[in-house]
């Protein structure tokens, strides 16, 4: 199994919420080993703003938002701190105008680089491009790909 803690990107957490069986199996094995999932405050913001906007638009999603809040409370939530801000600025300055639109990716990638923790994402290609352009050291993993151990 994983030998080091990892950071989940928003899309991986979303796959978990959607019940993706491969991601769920990986997450279960990870939780048994490490006890808690790790996400960033950026991911918490991204999800909460989605619920709040939907509720403001009259959608009855209070129960689901509460479940997410409990989930986040039981995760290790890494803040976007001054070190991450410095890394994010480096990445942002290296990107094209279109890549800069993916601000969430830049902020989450920066936290992973600042903490030197592998990032689990479904979108390795985009993050690899950000890392290549800016020269930061970003280790990427994808939990949506089955492993031999969990595929049995």
């Amino acid at each position: 199994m994983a030998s080091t803690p990892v950071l989940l990107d928003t899309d991986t957490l979303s796959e978990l919420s959607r019940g993706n069986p491969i991601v769920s199996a990986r997450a279960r094995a990870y939780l048994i080993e490490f006890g808690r999932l790790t996400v960033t405050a950026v991911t918490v913001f991204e999800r909460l703003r989605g619920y709040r906007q939907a509720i403001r638009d009259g959608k009855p999603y209070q129960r689901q938002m509460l479940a997410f809040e409990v989930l986040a409370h039981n995760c290790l939530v890494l803040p976007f701190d001054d070190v991450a801000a410095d890394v994010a600025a480096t990445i942002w300055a290296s990107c094209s105008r279109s890549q800069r639109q993916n601000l969430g990716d830049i902020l989450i990638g920066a936290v992973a680089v600042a903490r030197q923790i592998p990032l689990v994402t479904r979108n390795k290609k985009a993050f690899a491009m950000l890392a290549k352009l800016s020269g930061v050291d970003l280790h990427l993993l994808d939990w949506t790909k089955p492993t031999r151990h969990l595929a049995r």
Partner: protein
Amino acid sequence: MGLTAGVPACIGGFRTAPANSARPGSAQQLRHLSATCRFSPIWYVSGVPRSALAHDASVARTIRFPADLRDRITTDADRCGRSFEGQVIALLRSHYGEDVDIAPNPADILAFAKASLADIPSVDADVIVGKLKSVER
């Protein structure tokens, strides 16, 4: 199995005094525990006079655990990166109101994750999980 703990306690199916209603380890609290335990105690104290417990909050004592309970605590301790004793003390602290980091059950975490998008149409779910985008200045 040896254990040094500050407070004698019953867990699992026992009612204990509300927090701060009696000084931990006090004779009042011990009487309360004794009066409200409905089943045979899972944990029990041996070899220590109650009068000593009332005056010394850090006395060493022996607590015996059923094998299956011991195994469950050991599993949780490994997952939380604690010793067995550290896990027991963390559980007691959590029970008595201290903010202690106790890793929740993996199945519970996964259930909360699924519940966070349960019964939401995919079109709305796509919006809720949408990533942060910025408009270039």
